[in-house]
């Protein structure tokens, strides 16, 4: 079976899934107070983006979309390493993971 491109409607379906994942991640990031979950939610946003990118890759029949997913993975890994390090640091400081405990920039 030859690999053929999906059309825009099928693409839209995958984009829907990607967008839903992205927005759910966003909502989670905005509303959850646990720092770790917040970062988990950012990973979920990455996931949504990855789905979209792969769908585009199939839509356009080129591999750039998938290549970009690799970059996304790279960034996600780097972010996870740093962010989790920071989370641990913050936790050591205040003994809590509550994001509301960190509001030093309050105007």
């Amino acid at each position, binding site marked *: 079976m030859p690999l053929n491109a999906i059309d825009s409607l099928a693409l839209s379906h995958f984009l829907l899934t990607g967008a839903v994942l992205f927005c759910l991640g966003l909502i989670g990031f905005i509303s959850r107070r646990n720092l770790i979950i917040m970062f988990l939610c950012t990973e979920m946003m990455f996931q949504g983006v990855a789905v979209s990118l792969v769908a585009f890759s199939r839509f356009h029949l080129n591999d750039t979309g998938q290549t970009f997913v690799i970059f996304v993975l790279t960034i996600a890994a780097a972010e996870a390493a740093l962010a989790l390090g920071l989370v641990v640091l913050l936790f050591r400081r205040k003994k809590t993971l509550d994001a509301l405990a960190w*509001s030093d920039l309050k*105007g």
Partner: protein
Amino acid sequence: MPIELIKLVPWIPLLGAALCGVCCMKPVWRKAAGPISVLSIFIPFLITCGVYSAAKHLNDTQQVQTVYSWIGVGEFQVNMAYFIDPLTMVMLFVVTGIGSLIATYAMGYMKGDRGYARFFMGVSLFIFAMTTLVMADNLVLLYLGWEGVGLCSYLLIGYYYDKPFAVAAAKKAFIVNRIGDLGFALGIFLTYMTYHTVSLSVVTDMARHAVEQGFDPTTADLWIPFLLMLGAFGKSAQIPLHVWLPDAMAGPTPVSALVHAATMVTAGVYMIARLMPVFQLSPYALPTVATVGGVTALFAGTIALCQYDLKKVFAYSTVSQLGYMFLGVGALSTFGGIFHLFTHAFFKALLFLTAGSVMHALAGQLDLRAMSGLRHKMPVTCWLMFAGCLALAGFPFTAGFFSKDTILAEAMVRGTGEHGSTLFFWLAIMGLATAFLTAFYTFRLWFRVFMGPEHFEMGDDDHGADDAHGDDHGHAHEPHEMPWWPMNAPLAVLAVGALFAGLIFSGWMTTNIEESTAQPAVALNIQTDPQTAPAYEIIAVSDQADTHAAAADSHADAGHGDDHEAHRAHGIHVLLKWVSSFIALLGIALAGYFHWLNRPLTDQIAKRFSGVVEVLYNKYYVDELYDLTIVKPLRRLGHGFYLFDQFVINGLVMTVGYLPRLVGWSVRPTQSGQIQGYGLGMVMGMALVALLVFKWAF
């Protein structure tokens, strides 16, 4: 002697002042300041003498000696240039001559004082300013001298600067003068606007030409004299700006003699005399000058009657005499005015200096009530002052007699005859009354101080000098005569002048003033109709030679070329001589009776009219009036403005400044500091932007 040397006259005193300033720096050098200062005044006097003969025969180009260009913008060119004519020479003689005598006296008077060098720096600087004033070729340079003398007056009045009243007096003098100076400055502006030059010679020539051609005064012409006059009133202490002069006596006595009697205060008279044609252009100017002069003369004379402070009496007397001079120039008699200025310089300087001697001897005591019968203690001073008093009182054939008589006679000539103006008639009468008062208060003072039973109370300080008074420290216990050198010798010269200057220099003055460019341009005819305001009907002088040919004592009338008028004037002059002699003698006699022979009666009378005496003693409450109507409201205004500035203007500005803060404050809650809040905002922003860009844009 080359005429160019005259350029040096102002600068030598300036150099002297600079040297005196150097002398200030080390106490050892201070003693040098006196001689330096005297020399720096005396050398210009010698130069003046040398140049004098040459000055008579100057042509037009030589009359103006330019040193360098001072200010220049476009057409407005002001040179450091000197204008030489006989009037200037007369003034120079007065300034440098009397100045050297007074400075010499001051060498003794100020001896050992802490500010010795500072004093002489002020004196030399003053002579610089004063010579610049009288030699100035243009109004701006004259203004330089004008303000310069004001400054020196300020510095010298405030010489005893740790005495609050001296500081206040100095400030008052400067500020009141400044008021006049503002008028003067505006006068200069208007002059420049009208004539497109500020050169005195050109302005007077143009004005004279305008007068001679039969003039039609423009508004500017009418205003210029009044503005300039304000300056003259300020400088010469005429009503309403007379208040500073009596206070100015807080300065050392030689300063009072030099600055506030002989020279600076006469600058106003000189200026009006110099600009006579300009004043003639306005029909109301000279009568105003004469009126103010006459009123001031009488006004100050009455105040002098009831003053107990030795120097204050002479101060009011000076105001009064200056009033005479204004009356003189106002009556178109530059000769009278300047002549009186000349003689007044002698006798008033003499009077002040002798008063200074008395004060010096009594350790600063100035109260008339605290001294009496000092003739034995200080015989020389006594008789020197007597000479001065005679001259001031107008005793026949003394200096004051001639000059005062000339002024009164001229005023009377204006006030009588077929074109006589009632104004001038009454001014002349006022002048006569003042003459009587003058004789009375002068001799009241002299009799009080030197006659009667011997009695004195020493003052509480020795005129402000501190412990450095040195060798003549002992004088604080007993009044003593002044040494001949350097004090009494110059006084003797002045006394000779006071007694005989009138006789000797009358002719000399006449010729000088006749030759001066400052002479009146026209002869006047007073309108017959007494109902209308005194306005002059101007008759052009057709022939300058007529003026020269005219008789000395009626020169101003010469323009008429009318024998009858000349005869009438001569008659009035003779009559006035008799009348004023009589008045002077009467005044002296009455003063002798009340203040020498029968002092208790005087006290009784004074007690009966205590209200009048009180008013006179308090100088008609003019100071208080000014304080109440001008100074205090202004200061209150200042406070008000400050509050306005602080609260209203600054408040408005701050309100504007707070607007952004207000906005910031109102949106501040959005900055919760929680990253999720910002994320929420970002999401909404993204959604909105996406909507705007992708949905609504299509």
